[in-house]
Structure formats: structure tokens, C-alpha cells
């Protein structure tokens, strides 16, 4: 028995926490990438904004009004993604929103889980500024990711496998799939596009491509697992397939889809909710099969994101709205 209101809070609490953790991974790996590359090879931090999505368009538009601020540098972009309370997608806003949602689920989630969320909130509240400066950034982001993983550990090891747990997993998996498609849609598409450009005009392929692909995989913590699974040098298309389809990698979109399917299957009204997950898997298969060039990959990822958004709507309709 789970109240619709509480189901909504659990779902969003899980989404916001996953968003905070994934954003931290992306910022961390991008920082490492920039440090790795010679300064000439990668001069811009703007791809980070593109990955972060919608809210960042406003930020960019504001920055562009003042030419003195262009190009937007590392510190404003990282601050926007990590510590900006006016950016609803920033790490600190996500953690705030997660805690605000989970505050109303304290009698549902394990006590240690709430304590971890609360610790995380206190930590981010007093240390987010340190996450902006390059010298303390890795420590801040690493700590945050660690706390999120601890929370996941608590949920996995002590929470009843009941409806509340399935709602949690559902929120987490939808958000995780969404973040993976953004990384693929923005960064992988850009890298594939650049590679084709080089091939077309006869110039040599950018020697830093493999470093960039490594950074991309690392941003979803996939590098080591990719290497174990493929046992070969990094190939862009193989990396994209891995991130989208690999059934053994838990952050691949296909793995997330499987967990979404499981969760919906264990929740009420599954006959109503299942068709949309069939549709997601179909769109995903099409996306992975096509996507030979950057632009079509980007478009295909938008299709997958649209399906994830449709699942979000169906979840809301089935579990929150229908009992009103």
C-alpha cells in the first residue's frame, strides 16, 4: 500500500539524487579530460552546458548578452552546474530538491537512507563552493558520488522489495537513462561528426579522439567496464553501442530499460504502463542501428529522450493522477 503523493515524492527524490550524482560524474570526467589534453586541443567548456540540457540555455543566453564574458569560461560553467541555486538542474539544487521530496517519505525509506540524504544535504550546503574551484573539485565531487552510492547501498540492502522500492528504482533508472542519452547525444555525436569531417576533407583524424572517447566513457563511469567487455582499442561506434545497448553494463540505456520494465511489472496497473516501455525499447533499437553520423545520432537520442519523457507521463498518470 503506497499513497500516490508519497509515490510521487519517492520517484522524484530518486530522480534528483541520480541527477546530482550523474552531473557530478560528468563534471569530474570533463575536468580530468581538460587536464589531460594539451590546451590547444580543447579550449571550451561549453559541451558541459549542452549535456546539462534545457536550463542551461537560459544561462548561455544571459552570458551572451555581455560579450566581455565570452567565451564562457570554466569557473562560471562549473559554478552553474555545481553550486548555482538558481539553476534547477545544478547539483546543489538537485540535492535540495531530493531532500525536500524525501522529507515526506521518512517513514517509508530506511532510517539510514534518510540520514545519508541529510548528510549529503549538509555537506553540499557547506562545501558546494569548493566544488567550483579546480583544486578542490575532485574531492567534492568524489565525496558526493560516494554518498550517493552509500545511499544506493542502503536502499539495496535493507529496504523491503515493495512498491516504494520499485518507485525508487523507477525514478533512478529513468533519470540514469536520460543522462546517458544526453552524454551520447551531445558528446558522442560531436566526436563522430568531427571524425567524419576529418575523413571528408582529407585531414588526419584528430589524434586526441581516443582520449576524448575515454573521457566520454568515464563520464558515465563506463571506461573500465567497456574495456573489460570489448578487450580492444576504443572505437567510437562500439562505445556508443556499449552505452546504449550493452545488457551487462548497468548504466547502459538498455539496462535501465530492463529495470524500468521490471519495476513497472511489479507495480499496479502494469497493463496500462507496459506498452510505453515496449515502445522505448523499439526506439532504442532503431537509434542504435542507425546513427552512423553525428547528426542522426543526436536526433535518435532525442527520440529516446522523448520516450523517457512519455514514460514519466505514464507513471504520473497511472500512480499519481488516476486516484485523484
Amino acid at each position, binding site marked *: 500500500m503506497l499513497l500516490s503523493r508519497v509515490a510521487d515524492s519517492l520517484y522524484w527524490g530518486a530522480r534528483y539524487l541520480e541527477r546530482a550524482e550523474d552531473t557530478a560524474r560528468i563534471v569530474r570526467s570533463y575536468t580530468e579530460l581538460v587536464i589531460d589534453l594539451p590546451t590547444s586541443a580543447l579550449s571550451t567548456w561549453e559541451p558541459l552546458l549542452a549535456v546539462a540540457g534545457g536550463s542551461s540555455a537560459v544561462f548561455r543566453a544571459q552570458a551572451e548578452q555581455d560579450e566581455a564574458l565570452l567565451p564562457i569560461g570554466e569557473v562560471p560553467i562549473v559554478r552553474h552546474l555545481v553550486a548555482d541555486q538558481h539553476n534547477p538542474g545544478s547539483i546543489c539544487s538537485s540535492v535540495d530538491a531530493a531532500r525536500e521530496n524525501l522529507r515526506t517519505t521518512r517513514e517509508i525509506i530506511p532510517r539510514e537512507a534518510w*540520514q545519508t540524504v541529510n*548528510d549529503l544535504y549538509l555537506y553540499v550546503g557547506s562545501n558546494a563552493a569548493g566544488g567550483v574551484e579546480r583544486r578542490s573539485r575532485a574531492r567534492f565531487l568524489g565525496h558526493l558520488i560516494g554518498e550517493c552510492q552509500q545511499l544506493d547501498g542502503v536502499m539495496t540492502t535493507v529496504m523491503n522489495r515493495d512498491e516504494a522500492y520499485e518507485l525508487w528504482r523507477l525514478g533512478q533508472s529513468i533519470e540514469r537513462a536520460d543522462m546517458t542519452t544526453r552524454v551520447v547525444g551531445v558528446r558522442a555525436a560531436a566526436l563522430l561528426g568531427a571524425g567524419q569531417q576529418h575523413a571528408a576533407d582529407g585531414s588526419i583524424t584528430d589524434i586526441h579522439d581516443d582520449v576524448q572517447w575515454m573521457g566520454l566513457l568515464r563520464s558515465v563511469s563506463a571506461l573500465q567496464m567497456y574495456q573489460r567487455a570489448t578487450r580492444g582499442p576504443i572505437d567510437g561506434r562500439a562505445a556508443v553501442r556499449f552505452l546504449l545497448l550493452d545488457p551487462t553494463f548497468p548504466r547502459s540505456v538498455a539496462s535501465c530499460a530492463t529495470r524500468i520494465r521490471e519495476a513497472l511489472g511489479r507495480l499496479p496497473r502494469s497493463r496500462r504502463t507496459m506498452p510505453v516501455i515496449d515502445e522505448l525499447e523499439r526506439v532504442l533499437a532503431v537509434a542504435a542501428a542507425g546513427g552512423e553520423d553525428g547528426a542522426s545520432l543526436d536526433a535518435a537520442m532525442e527520440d529516446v529522450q522523448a520516450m523517457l519523457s512519455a514514460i514519466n507521463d505514464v507513471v504520473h498518470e497511472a500512480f499519481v493522477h488516476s486516484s485523484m
Partner: protein
Amino acid sequence: MTMAHVRADTHTWDELLAPDGTPRPAARALLDQLATLEHSELQERQTLAELDILTMGITFTVYSDGRGIDRAWPFDIIPRVIAASEWRGVEAGLKQRLRAINMFIDDLYHEQRIIADGVFPAELLEHSKNFRHECIGANPVHGVWAHISGSDLVRDADGTMYVLEDNLRVPSGVSYVLENRAISKRVFADLFARQSILPVDSYTDELNRMLVSIAPAGITNPTIAVLTPGIYNSAYFEHSFLAQRLGAVLVEGADMVVGDDECVYMRTIGGLERVHVIYRRIDDEFLDPEVFRPESTLGVPGLMRAWRAGNVAIANAPGAGVADDKVVYAWVPDIIRYYTGEEPLLANVLTYRCHYPDERTYVIDHIDQLVVKPANESGGYGLLIGDRATRSELDAHIALIEADPRNWVAQPILALSTVPTICDGEIEPRHVDLRPFILSGASSYVTAGGLTRVALRKGSLVVNSSQGGGSKDTWIVEAE
């Protein structure tokens, strides 16, 4: 470190120290232990306890500039100690008191024998803000209306324990009794091993048993819900805590609906599910917009119909607050004698009722020697302590009394007892009160001790957490 120096003022009663600075018998083990600790060790234990409170997220909410702010629960590690032999007397007195009060409420909503017999004045009922005409003739299970109550106790200079007020509407604080104990067990683990301190943890089991006992007829395994006004309420932490310990569903008004069958349902992800018992933590006026405040969104339209039809139990019953009134308080000793035929076991504080011209005149003439209280406010709001007020504050209160006499009572200024307390690193006496919680259903139960609230400001008598009060664990100790 020793405490003897703390016993500076012998005009008040200290809960741990006798007037000569030696430990009271029940507190000896505690004070012996404290004597072995360096000042810095004691401070360290206090700091660790505060850290626990922060990470466990034990909070209460205060309102400032229109928004709620979550504050860490203020806790002092030095407990208040009461001998079990004394406590058994208090417990019996509280059970007697609540039995009589429940009979009084049931009588008021039925025959009103106590008025017919000339014991309770009819005009007081006519002017009562908390008498609910909508409840006349209702028959809650066991004839019990105030299922969960918290009576505030204070000890005067002569050592007498008095009931200061009865909270029969939605008393809060019990979760902090349990949390304070959890922290105190960490701070003084060795003392808990060496002496017999009565446990407090069974409260939520007893609460569960009581709530099951008031379920509608024929329901043996009821679905219980805790009704909260929501996250911005100052006691939300407690609502959530209790729901969790009860295994109950924490609901807001909008989560529930009354069906055509006059039963209460909640909105779940699988559809509507029946609710049998509601432990409500919102005031009467917000329960049902059909009957009370029409603009309230905290309650459930039709809830009163369902309750009157016997399809749902509500604890505390709507209308129970009629006896939670500082004017009715003055009659409680008579109420006890009338319904039980017994003498009251616990003392009531002498109370002047401004409703009566002679008593009002006395209050106005002696206002600088009295505590003046509005009849229907809680949280210490509107309270005036005569010997600490300025002349213009006194005059302002006199004007308030004359404008609405029935709403005011006054009592002699009691010298609230003290307990040594850590204040800015030093140990100083601070005034305390005690709120035990009493459960009344098929049978009754009193917490072992209760919530000791402490006025952290030097000399202050105001213990409310919303006004700078803190808390302590309360130990009921069996003699060796």
C-alpha cells in the same frame, strides 16, 4: 566534576541536588559518574550528542519571516532523574485524572449531568470556544474522547508536583522522549548498564494497541493513518516518526476522500483503500470543511459524517478539546471527585478565573505577583509573568483581560524546579517542566517519565522549544 556549587539558590527545588549540595538518592549514580568526568570530557559528550542530533535529522520547525526553518532539536545531556517510587504515584494520579476528564467530555456531549447537578457552571460551556455542537450525541468507542494527552507537570519549591495544564487536543513532543533516550543511551551507556532506568521505547507499541482498540466495530486488523497538516508544521518530524514506528500511513488531508458509503479512503497507487483509524495531528477546525472552516484544505470533506456513522475512529475525538482549556482546568479537582468519587491524587495549581468579577478584581490588583494566561493558546503565547513584566506590559494585559474576561486565568508564580544544565560550557541550574503522555483506550498507559523541557535562558521560566527552550532525557530510576 562536582555539582555542589550549582546549588546556589535554595529557594527553588533542584531535581538532582538536595539543598546542602549532596545528590538526591535517585540521582546519586549519575552524579558520581559526572564527578569522574573532567569538564572537557563532559563538554565533549555534549558536542557528540549535538552531532548525533544533526546527522539523525532530529529537528523541529520554527517560523520566521513567513517561512519554516528546520532547527536541530536542542538537547542537554544531563538528565532529569525521578525515583520510581515517586513516579508510581504520579502515574496513578494521571490515570485518575484522564479517566475523569474523559467521563466529563462524554457527559458534556450527552446528558450534561455535571451541569444539572450544579458542579460545573452552564455559562462556562456556553462560552467555550472548544465545545463542538457537531459532536453532541456522538459515541466514540469506550466513551473515550481524549485518547492521547500530555499533561504538563511542574514542581514547586516545597517539592510538590503540580499539574499545570492538560493538553487534550494534539499534544506533541513524545517523539523527542524516544529520541532523547536514544541519544542519552549513547552518552551514558555505562550508567544504563549499572542501574535500573525504566525504558520508554514501548510507547509506540502501546499507542498502536490503543489505536487498534478504538477501531470501528468488527474491524480486528485496522488500517491506521496519521493525519498531518504537512511538512511545514512544526511537529512534522514527530508525525513522520510516529507513523514510522506505528507502521501507519502518514497522510495529508488531500490523500483521503469520503466515499458514498460514508467510509474514509486514501488514494494509493493501486486505487482507493479504506482507513479505519485516524490519529489526527490537526486541530478540530481543520478536520472537515463541510462542518468546520470551509476554506480549510488540511482536512477531508465528509470526515465528520464518517466519524458520526462509526465508520472511522478519530483520535483524539473531535470536540475533546472542550476540556483542554485553562478555565475548565480550574474545575478538574471537582470533576475528579464528581465522576470517580475519589480525592485527586495529583495537585492542581490554585487558579483565578477572570470570568468571576471577584477573582478578576483580585487578578488585576495582584497582577505583578501572578502568571496570567489566555485560556486557549498553547506554546506559551500570550503568557505574562507578573513579576518580570514592565508596568506598561501589565497594563496592556489588564486591558486584554477586561475586554474578554472568560479567556483569562491567573495563577501564583510557582518557583519551577531546576536541573543542572550545560550552558556555554558551564554547569548552571535551569528551570524545567515535565510532559508525560497518557494513552486512554480500552485501558490506559502513562509514559515512563516524559519530555523534560528546560528553559535555557538564565532565570527564564519559558520552556517551549519555539521560544528558546531545550530538552533533557527523563530517567525513572528504581532504587537499589
